[in-house]
């Protein structure tokens, strides 16, 4: 009898339940706790909506910022891939003929895909058209522009570094005054975006802690309100896991609902920005359309928010449930 009591099988009259029955009982507990916690939340729609909004806003801020930076990065990467070019400014005493010869020579270089030669007159003509400084140029009397070589490198990806290396090599040629990588500014922009993404990560961590605290604080109150129930469950032999479980499910629902609110908010942000972004892209002859979080991002957001909810609930439950003892 005593050994049986210790294991919780309280009567010799009863057949011990098989593992199937026990598993079924366990699943039944989970299902009822899961459903019951959601039912309780929906019974107080205003309070629940408020918590979902709080969690949603806290999560929408980093995911919205992340989305903006991600889009900016995609745009600028597109630009840099499409316009990888080195401009060679030859020395002023170089003639168009010498420029043409150098262009032919460089055209055979293994790292160079194409060379376009712009003679002194052509360069001046283009400058006139672009700058509209006709008077100034006329006043100079002679053509102040050197011939140019526009170099398209063979490597069409791999970042800015190989481009810079090629430019350094070309700059050592005796005919060349200066070699300039045209996409240098984009590299700086990309570096800035990288920095921004790190800042967003830090912000995400901070706001994740905020979500944890929101859920924990809310649940602390919920647990206090259900003190009577917890006492009775403790008295009739409920384990700590059993007592904790409904609150963990409540945390799960808080987190998931907040995650969905965050999804809605970022979706609305995207919708709101779509038209102006497309207009802006059109000005740059691009058909760029901002992208959303996608399957991957959505999954991470929902999974993360659910996890934060459960973790927040766990913190509150661990602290509170210990202190509630029947008297």
């Amino acid at each position, binding site marked *: 009898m005593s050994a049986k009591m*210790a294991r*919780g099988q309280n009567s010799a009259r009863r057949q011990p339940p098989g593992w199937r029955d026990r598993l079924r009982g366990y699943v039944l507990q989970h299902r009822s706790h899961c459903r019951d916690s959601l039912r309780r939340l929906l019974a107080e729609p205003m309070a629940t909506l408020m918590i979902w909004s709080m969690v949603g806003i806290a999560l929408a801020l980093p995911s919205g910022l992340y989305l903006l930076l991600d889009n900016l990065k995609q745009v600028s990467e597109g630009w840099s891939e499409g316009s990888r070019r080195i401009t060679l400014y030859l020395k002023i005493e170089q003639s168009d003929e010498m420029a043409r010869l150098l262009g032919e020579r460089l055209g055979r270089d293994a790292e160079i895909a194409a060379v376009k030669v712009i003679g002194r007159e052509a360069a001046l003509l283009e400058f006139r058209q672009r700058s509209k400084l006709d008077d100034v140029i006329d006043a100079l009397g002679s053509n102040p522009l050197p011939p140019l070589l526009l170099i398209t490198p063979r490597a069409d990806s791999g970042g800015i570094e190989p481009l810079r290396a090629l430019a350094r090599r070309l700059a050592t040629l005796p005919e060349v005054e200066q070699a300039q990588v045209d996409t240098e500014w984009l590299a700086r922009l990309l570096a800035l975006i990288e920095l921004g993404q790190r800042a967003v990560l830090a912000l995400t961590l901070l706001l994740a802690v905020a979500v944890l605290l929101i859920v924990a604080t809310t649940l602390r109150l919920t647990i206090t309100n259900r003190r009577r129930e917890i006492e*009775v469950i403790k008295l009739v032999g409920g384990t700590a896991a059993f007592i904790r479980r409904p609150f963990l499910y409540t945390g799960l629902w808080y987190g998931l609902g907040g995650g969905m609110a965050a999804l809605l908010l970022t979706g609305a942000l995207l919708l709101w920005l779509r038209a102006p972004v497309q207009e802006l892209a059109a000005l740059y002859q691009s058909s760029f359309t901002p992208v959303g979080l996608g399957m991957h991002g959505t999954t991470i957001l929902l999974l993360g928010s659910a996890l934060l909810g459960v973790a927040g609930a766990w913190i509150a439950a661990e602290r509170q449930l210990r202190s509630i003892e029947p008297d």
Partner: protein
Amino acid sequence: MLRFEQVSKRYEGGHEALRDLSFHLPKRSLAFLTGHSGAGKSTLLKLIMRMERPSQGRVLVGGIDLDRLPQRSIPFYRRNIGVVFQNHRLLFDRTLFDNVALPLVIAGASRHEIGRRVRAALDKVGLLDKERMNPIQLSGGEQQRAGIARAVVSRPPLLLADEPTGNLDPDLSAEIMALFSAFSQAGVTVLIASHDTALIDAMDKPVFELHEGRLINDPFDDGDAAPP
């Protein structure tokens, strides 16, 4: 079934609730625990429930030394004890059925098992037709009987009752006592804390009497209740 060996309980602040208490309660017996309020009845029940631990001595229930019971085993230990409270401790956020089902749900019983046993327990206390009601809609006597149904639904070998008739008139009290007698005849060990002397006298059952934390009447004192 139940054995106290030189048990003392002193609370923080110096109040001594129980002093050097030794007795045993045989299996399948029904006994009363009586004494003035403050005599230590509640403390004694709390020690059995393992809600409190003795300052000295040992409490053995079903052969288990409660002092050696690890914390994580306490819930499983408590599933072997049915408790009836004076204020019934029913939960008003669920139906009578769900209240009575609670110990079975906690123990992880199947839905079929729960339905069968809850109805059997409600039938025994005469509340079968009210299973869908909220306990707040029940009368005082019905609430107490609902509490009893919850205490016996998992067929525990030990049943404790703390002033189970405290708020009831004599007719209802007799009804409740008849229920306890029936359980004891079915093999359950029953210990009822009460100061309703008229009722206790009418029942003609063994009575433990406490006075200021000491046992002044032990009906089972046959000389071997406690080793020296």
